[in-house]
């Protein structure tokens, strides 16, 4: 008798373990696979993309036990096209992609889209960017990155003489420059010079050193990128010049956000162009599947001005960027 009870209890227990979760969660947890294709970490910003993609993939899978997120990194457009095909073969329900070069990847993305999968495109858009190729478009705001910096400089130091360090001669850089010009419009802010620093610390150091030689008085430096700002700050420190009131970068790297938090006089603000935008796209995609919220459309992140007051929420000490 005793033994039978025991047997019954174990049987019941076993059954509840086996069926229970299935019964309890079966309706809410459907099986979904999201493929995430991103560029390999070849510089600070893409390193941040990889970090945030992996961080949020883990969070999402903990939140939704039925969800499987596969993150793939690729070094160039050709290998990324292969990676997208590999993901499609594995049977994904959605593709979240930050293309290395959007125009070269159009056909690979189109194929996934034509198979009826959900496609979320991040940051870099091909020439034709509409609902025929993707369902969701998440991006930072390049013109606003320039404009926010320009407006801040115009508001803080209306008569400033500014030197600008550009990135590389590509459209993103031009958008930022145009935005900056719009931001300082109507103020007395004067741009002394614009030169390319190639989004590289060493080149930015060189350009800044030459600016310091060329101009006896510089009020503000706009480098539009936190990586380049490292070289700029070093050049200023070496020259021992006290005329530079502050510098403005962009992107929101942990080192610069930390300086903002610490109240560094030379780095009072930063302008956000967050690599974490990949995570926004992943989160929205998952929400579309599990919470039945409409997510199709364009989602443009603000180029938020990071100040001492809000810096904490943009600080990721464990991120490589």
């Amino acid at each position, binding site marked *: 008798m005793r033994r039978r009870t025991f047997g019954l209890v174990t049987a019941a227990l076993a059954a509840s373990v086996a069926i229970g979760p299935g019964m309890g969660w079966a309706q809410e947890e459907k099986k979904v696979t999201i493929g995430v294709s991103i560029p390999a970490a*070849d510089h*600070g910003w893409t390193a941040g993309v990889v970090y945030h993609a992996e961080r949020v993939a883990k969070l999402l899978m903990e939140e939704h036990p039925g969800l499987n997120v596969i993150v793939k990194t690729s070094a160039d457009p050709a290998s990324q096209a292969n990676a997208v095909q590999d993901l499609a073969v594995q049977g994904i329900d959605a593709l979240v992609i930050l293309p290395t070069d959007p125009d070269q990847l159009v056909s690979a993305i189109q194929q996934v889209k034509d198979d009826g999968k959900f496609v979320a495109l991040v940051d870099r858009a091909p020439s034709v960017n509409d609902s025929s190729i993707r369902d969701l478009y998440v991006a930072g705001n390049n013109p606003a990155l320039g404009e926010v910096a320009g407006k801040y400089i115009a508001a803080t130091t209306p008569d400033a003489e500014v030197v600008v360090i*550009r990135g590389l001669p590509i459209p993103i850089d031009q958008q930022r420059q145009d935005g900056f010009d719009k931001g300082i419009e109507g103020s007395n802010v004067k741009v002394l010079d614009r030169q390319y620093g190639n989004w590289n*610390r060493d080149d930015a150091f060189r*350009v800044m*050193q030459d*600016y310091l030689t*060329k101009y006896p008085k510089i009020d503000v430096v706009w480098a539009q990128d936190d990586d380049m700002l490292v070289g700029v700050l070093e050049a200023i420190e070496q020259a021992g010049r006290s005329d530079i009131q502050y510098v403005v970068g962009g992107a929101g790297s942990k080192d610069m956000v930390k300086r903002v938090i610490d109240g560094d006089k030379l780095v009072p603000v930063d302008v956000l162009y967050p690599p974490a935008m990949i995570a926004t796209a992943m989160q929205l995609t998952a929400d579309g599947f599990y919470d039945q919220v409409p997510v199709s459309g364009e989602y443009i992140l603000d180029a938020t001005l990071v100040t001492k007051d809000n810096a904490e929420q943009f600080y990721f000490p464990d991120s*490589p960027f």
Partner: protein
Amino acid sequence: MTTASTETAKPKTSRDWDLRAVAPFVALALLLVLGAIANENFISVTNLTNVITRSAFIAIIALGATYVISSGGLDLSVGSMVAFVASLMILFMNSGVISDPMLMLVTGMLVALAIGAACGLLNGLITTVGKIEPFIATLGTMGIYRGLTTWLSQGGAITLRDRELQQLYRPVYFGEVFGVPVPIIVIFVTAAIAAFVLYRTRYGRHLIAVGSNEDVARYSGISVNRVRTIAYVVQGLCVAVAVLLYVPRLGSTSATTGILWELQAITAVVVGGTALRGGVGRIWGTVCGAFILEIVGNIMLLSNFVSEYLIGAIQGAIIIIAMLVQRSLSRRS
């Protein structure tokens, strides 16, 4: 053919040699004049020391490249090697295995030199023992060193964490001895050593012999592989010396450190008068070539008449003109 004229002809030939070696310096002088016209600040002591200090990395790497190229080889991996050696050096100093900062710094420097030599040795062995064309072999190691750096840094930056160590190390780039920045002293000391070894030792003569004609050198009993391998090790050591100066500047490396430096180093060597086909090595010309490259960029930035979009084109044109000036000088004699 007449022997009578040789006595008078001899000084002429030696002057001819001088003129060839002098050519890069003439080009440099012309550039200085051009710079002074472009912007009066150009000729200021601060600017010139800034520019020469900045050229230290390329100059020192190019000294090693002079060895490799005169031996008939080529090394495309130096830019990646800078990033790789610098990353490992910083990671070692971050590991905190030695608590005394001074001792740590010295050990870190020795570690960098050892890694640089090892990287050079690897390049040398692949080309000599592995018998792979230096262009392909070092193209391969270029990818390897770059990839390992990106992996070590996870694509981000590797930064020297210890503040005390950073402060201790900073003077190596920013410091001055009797008003002369340390990197400039390092350029000239390294160049003097390189010149001594190349022009005054048996190894130097063997190196040039191997570069001029491998077969003749082999029949003369020179171990060609050994000579070439050592040239790559010298290149590795030079890269390490450049790293010793590079790390204190920004205190960090990233995946983009040293990109395209190999091309700048090779350009400096060639502008300095060393032949790409091997057999001729001009140490002081190389140093001059590195100065020329950096000064061209500096003049572009300081002058107001060049659009930022055109800088690359003008830089290329100036380098070609500098080479033509050299060529015409050496032909005239």
